[in-house]
């Protein structure tokens, strides 16, 4: 069985190589049959990787404990969905999962574009398959998921395995890695198109139009992955944080930042023909940061709570990245002539300029995060001392960046293209500014003194007002014409230009998230030791430990504290945080209990019994507003889906473009 899996991977590797050579030679010698066979090789690669994955998943579920991978990531008593999730629970399996996703994407792209872009497609295939071949090489020759335990000449069957890391036995962990990987892997496709368009010297923006949906969908997967990770950290790690600036978290954030910058700056290219080189750089950076992220997660270069063992794959990743980046830089420099800008910046107060600042600030954030993550490695190379930087560093830099971005979120969409007059600025921003300032004054009057928090709430009000005003103005115009009510008109408005209004909804989601982030400044924490029966308090909550219960099942032993909670004297129910000891891995974990409300979460962690075994040690936290982060995510999801709906009026979009290009010669707009 395992031999069959390994064989499938070797064959897949060979077919990937064939597909690269086939498409390049076929293109060069103009042999359509060779090109067609290279395309079919892509499907074959998919089928082979799927077979290998199927065998691994089957072994995990059936419990074939002769395999090293199965024995160390699965056991008999684990529920079925965690056995399946063990596919991406460890290093080898997750690389196989990467290969499988990329093979799937490649097959989909090859199929949907089989009759389009005859110039570009062979190169697209070549780029996709080169990446695929790299990952297949890793799992075929370096770390195989089908390794068996060998002692002397015999194969060892361990009988039972260690099980998946208990921290990962949580529902979001079943979907968090696939989402993040769908995001990571997905950026290979726009990158492949960008690369192919450079090689074939395409003059226009074909690659952007083609991959627009890919980019948005991939970005959505990535956002979902990051947010699920945050939700998991919040609900599982027991200290209530959703983001710790851990290297692995940073690794997932980096490509998301460049991808966000890319999504914004392509608008400049589509409408004004500007920033072409920049977009190439951004999409390449995103792709390489995705690879880099996988490398950071999997190689143990920097120590991390995600704690994967040291492994030999680091140098392969470095080589792949070095060659890839060198290739991308060479191609961009060599094709600079094809990437000339069609218009230039006219005023500092203009839509263009707000895009530029948006990009600048996102890139600065990306650079700061990258720098902080790699600081131990860099400082060791330069000074010989391994120095790490911590949470305060990331926060000092990223909090102002975040606030400035939030500000641009409100300003950018309302400023006119090319240049904006003071008069129009006043018209657009008077009321939002008043609303923001009023909220800040009210909060100061209420006793809030935290400067960043004040600024953040003020900006949230400002941005929310600009967005609502946009919807209101558009909807009122439609309603005046058609006589429909405002709500129906707002839907009609969104349907006419889904990209624009979907984007506003996404921005609204971001505003909600910032409200949630700001709540962090007002958290309370308290470690309480109480005897069963007595009362402790945190904020305006009273906690009474009613009982400590115990029990066990196949997977773990549990100890549970039953805590009656009252708020200002009114009972609001019981919370039951739990301490578990997993039998297979002998690892303890904490199951926190959270009372989630819109204004604040009460978060209880049962840390265990005190030394004399009489008192329960409870870590109690109050996190204001944290639910708004998750609400913000749902709004962001909805907005992104709206962006993907085809707009009702295609004409409108085409016209904007024509105006954009003609704009070079036109005099100043009235």
């Amino acid at each position, binding site marked *: 069985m395992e031999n069959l899996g390994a064989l499938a991977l070797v064959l897949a590797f060979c077919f990937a190589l064939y597909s690269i050579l086939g498409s390049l030679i076929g293109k060069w010698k103009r042999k359509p049959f060779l090109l067609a066979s290279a395309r079919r090789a892509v499907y074959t690669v998919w089928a082979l990787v799927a077979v290998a994955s199927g065998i691994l998943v089957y072994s995990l579920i059936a419990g074939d404990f002769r395999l090293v991978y199965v024995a160390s990531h699965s056991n008999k008593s684990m529920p079925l969905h965690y056995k399946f999730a063990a596919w991406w629970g460890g290093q080898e399996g997750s690389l196989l999962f990467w290969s499988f996703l990329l093979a799937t994407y490649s097959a989909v792209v090859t199929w949907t574009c089989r009759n389009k872009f005859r110039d570009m497609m062979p190169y697209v295939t070549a780029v996709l398959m080169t990446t695929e071949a790299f990952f297949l090489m890793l799992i075929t020759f370096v770390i195989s998921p089908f390794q068996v335990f060998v002692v*002397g000449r015999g194969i060892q069957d361990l009988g039972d395995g260690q099980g998946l890391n208990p*921290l990962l036995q949580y529902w979001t962990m079943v979907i968090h890695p696939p989402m993040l990987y769908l995001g990571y892997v997905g950026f290979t496709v726009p990158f492949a198109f960008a690369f192919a368009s450079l090689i074939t010297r395409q003059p226009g923006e074909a690659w952007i139009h083609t991959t627009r949906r890919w980019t948005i969908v991939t970005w959505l997967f990535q956002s979902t992955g990051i947010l699920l990770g945050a939700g998991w950290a919040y609900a599982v790690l027991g200290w209530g944080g959703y983001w710790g600036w851990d290297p692995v978290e940073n690794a997932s954030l980096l490509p998301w930042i460049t991808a966000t910058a890319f999504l914004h700056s392509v608008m400049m290219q589509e409408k004004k023909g500007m920033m072409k080189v920049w977009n190439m750089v951004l999409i390449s950076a995103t792709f390489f940061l995705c690879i880099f992220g996988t490398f950071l997660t999997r190689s143990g270069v920097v120590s991390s709570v995600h704690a994967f063992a040291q492994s030999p794959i680091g140098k392969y990743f470095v080589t792949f990245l070095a060659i890839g980046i060198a290739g991308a830089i060479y191609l961009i420099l060599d094709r600079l002539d094809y990437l000339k800008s069609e218009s230039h910046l006219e005023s500092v107060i203009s839509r263009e300029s707000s895009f530029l600042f948006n990009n600048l600030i996102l890139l600065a954030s990306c650079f700061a995060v990258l720098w902080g993550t790699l600081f131990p490695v860099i400082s060791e190379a330069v000074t010989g001392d391994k120095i790490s930087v911590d949470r305060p560093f990331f926060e000092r830099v990223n909090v102002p960046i975040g606030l*400035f971005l939030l500000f641009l979120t409100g300003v950018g969409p309302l400023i006119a293209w090319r240049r904006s007059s003071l008069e129009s600025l006043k018209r657009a921003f008077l009321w939002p500014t008043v609303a923001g300032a009023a909220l800040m004054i009210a909060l100061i009057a209420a006793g809030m003194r935290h400067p960043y928090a004040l600024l953040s709430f003020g900006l949230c009000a400002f941005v929310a007002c600009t967005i609502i005003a946009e919807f209101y103005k558009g909807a009122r115009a439609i309603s005046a014409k058609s006589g429909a009510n405002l709500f129906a008109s707002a839907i009609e408005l969104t349907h006419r230009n889904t990209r624009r209004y979907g984007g506003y909804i996404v921005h609204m989601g971001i505003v909600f998230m910032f409200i949630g982030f700001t709540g962090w400044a007002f958290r309370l924490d308290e470690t309480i030791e109480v005897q069963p029966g007595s009362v402790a308090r945190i904020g305006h909550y009273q906690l009474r430990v009613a009982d400590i219960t115990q029990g066990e099942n196949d997977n773990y032993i549990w100890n549970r504290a039953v805590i009656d909670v009252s708020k200002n004297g009114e009972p609001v129910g019981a919370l039951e945080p739990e301490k578990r000891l997993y039998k297979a891995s002998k690892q303890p974990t904490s199951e926190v209990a959270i009372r989630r409300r819109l204004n604040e979460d009460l978060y209880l962690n049962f840390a265990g019994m005190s030394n004399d075994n009489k008192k329960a040690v409870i870590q109690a936290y109050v996190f204001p507003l944290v639910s708004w982060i998750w609400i913000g995510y749902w709004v962001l999801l909805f907005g992104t889906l709206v962006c993907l709906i085809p707009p009702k009026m295609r004409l409108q979009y085409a016209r904007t473009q024509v105006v954009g290009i003609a704009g070079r010669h036109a005099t100043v707009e009235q």
Partner: protein
Amino acid sequence: MKTWAKFALLAGVIVGTLAWLAVGGINETKTYYKTIAELHQMGPRALDQKIRVGGDIQAGSIQRSGREVLFTLTQDRMKLNVVYSGIDPLPDTFRDGAQALADGRLGRDGIFHASKIQAKCASKYEAKPGRPAAAPAM
């Protein structure tokens, strides 16, 4: 040209501010990775730096008294007494024999005062190849 100059100026101001914040942030939070042996060699220089030190938690050395946790880290037969008095709960992986990273400062009494502890369970991640060898061969 003038527009570009204005834009460059603004961009410069922004990047400059961020760089200033970043440098401040690094100086405030930089932590030196040291082994226990290096820490013992550093002498008085070690007193005024934030240090991250790693090692295995000596079996049976963990003692809790009130909110403080005392334990001993060992590495290559070198020992270091650590006292943890941070706010965050200790990770679940913190127990006898686990690998731990302690962030904090060395006190004049020779005890390391940690404000943050990271731990990973050694048996889970790294002892895999050793296990089958210990079991009887077929």
